[in-house]
């Protein structure tokens, strides 16, 4: 039951993008096409899960016992950064098309607050365990992917719309995100 609640909360009620405001950069940046947004979601899910596992273990077995809780931020980000750069180098070799598609945004996963945010939030889960933390990361990346893909499909269809000059670009994207977030308020109270 806990797991279902985590999932519903992460995907709908407290959607990481639409209500927690984490990962807004890639949300606005890599959402011009559905296909790339799918790739990005996958990349984020991958990185987020691995990062959460690593940081959880790091926190649980090194930081806390050593009383170094205050180094949480710096160690986490270091681990994530190294991880992302590793993924980037590997991807460039293994799958050039995906590398091309995600372009400059792969390094930006490093600065994707969603990844660090989830890693930190995962520590504060009630009755936390590694399993829960991982599940939390996966759920959140699903929430991220859902928001990103829906948003990308809307943006794709807006490409064909005659958006007023002043609203073009960033404002309309923010507005769509706002209305999406407004609609998601309907899920309030589900958990």
């Amino acid at each position, binding site marked *: 039951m806990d797991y279902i609640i985590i999932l519903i909360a992460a995907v709908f009620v407290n959607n990481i993008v639409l209500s927690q405001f984490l990962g807004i950069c890639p949300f606005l940046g890599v959402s011009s096409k559905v296909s790339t947004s799918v790739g990005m979601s996958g990349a984020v899910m991958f990185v987020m899960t691995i990062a959460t596992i690593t940081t959880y273990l790091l926190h649980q077995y090194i930081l806390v016992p050593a009383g170094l809780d*205050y180094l949480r931020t710096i160690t986490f980000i270091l681990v994530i950064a190294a991880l992302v750069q590793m993924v980037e180098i590997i991807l460039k070799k293994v799958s050039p098309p995906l590398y091309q598609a995600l372009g400059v945004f792969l390094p930006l996963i490093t600065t994707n607050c969603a990844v660090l945010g989830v890693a930190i939030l995962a520590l504060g889960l009630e009755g936390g365990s590694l399993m829960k933390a991982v599940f939390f990361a996966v759920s959140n990346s699903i929430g991220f992917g859902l928001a990103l893909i829906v948003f990308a499909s809307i943006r794709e269809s807006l490409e064909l719309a005659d958006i007023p000059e002043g609203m073009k670009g960033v404002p309309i994207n923010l507005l769509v995100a706002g209305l999406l977030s407004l609609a998601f308020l309907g899920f309030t109270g589900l958990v």
Partner: protein
Amino acid sequence: MSKKKDTFINMVLSLFVITIISGFSLGYVNELTIGPIEKGKIERKVNALKLVLPTFDNNPIEDVQLIKSSLVQDSVEVFPAYENSKFVGAAIIGSTEKGFSGLIKLIVGFSPEGTIKNIVVLEQKETPGLGTKMKDEKFLAQFREKNPSAFNLKVTKDGGEVDALTGATITSRAFGEAVQMAYDEFMKNNGLLIELKN
């Protein structure tokens, strides 16, 4: 501009130096701030207790009692207050999951007879501007100096005596319920607390 080359040694060395410096400085700042942080945490708790309890001279935080309760999973924290070794009241954490957005956590101070001295909201996720008005003086005031034995903690709509917040009946109900829980726990353990110091 001469950049250092990507040799293994350089990579390790530069990170090594940076981490050493950062480690030292962080450790140092931590030593500087750890005191104030701890102090601040306790201060805030004491401040909350001061708000809800009559004057006391003990350290309620040290005297905290964990009481097993049937109402919640974990045990309930009870902070007894004594003045001149005389039991003058206790603060109890009351909570409910029935808020509009889930958990509401309060600390309620009682006199030995069970009269509510004051309430402070500790945690809540209610809708800003609506449910959050439970922190407002206007709402809280109606509970002060009331003894739940004589004061029905239900909202007027349900036949109680609490004037609900406009547009936030659910929050008001939940609030009442949390207070009721704290009261029940307090009354159950009232005797114990009196004995404790004696």
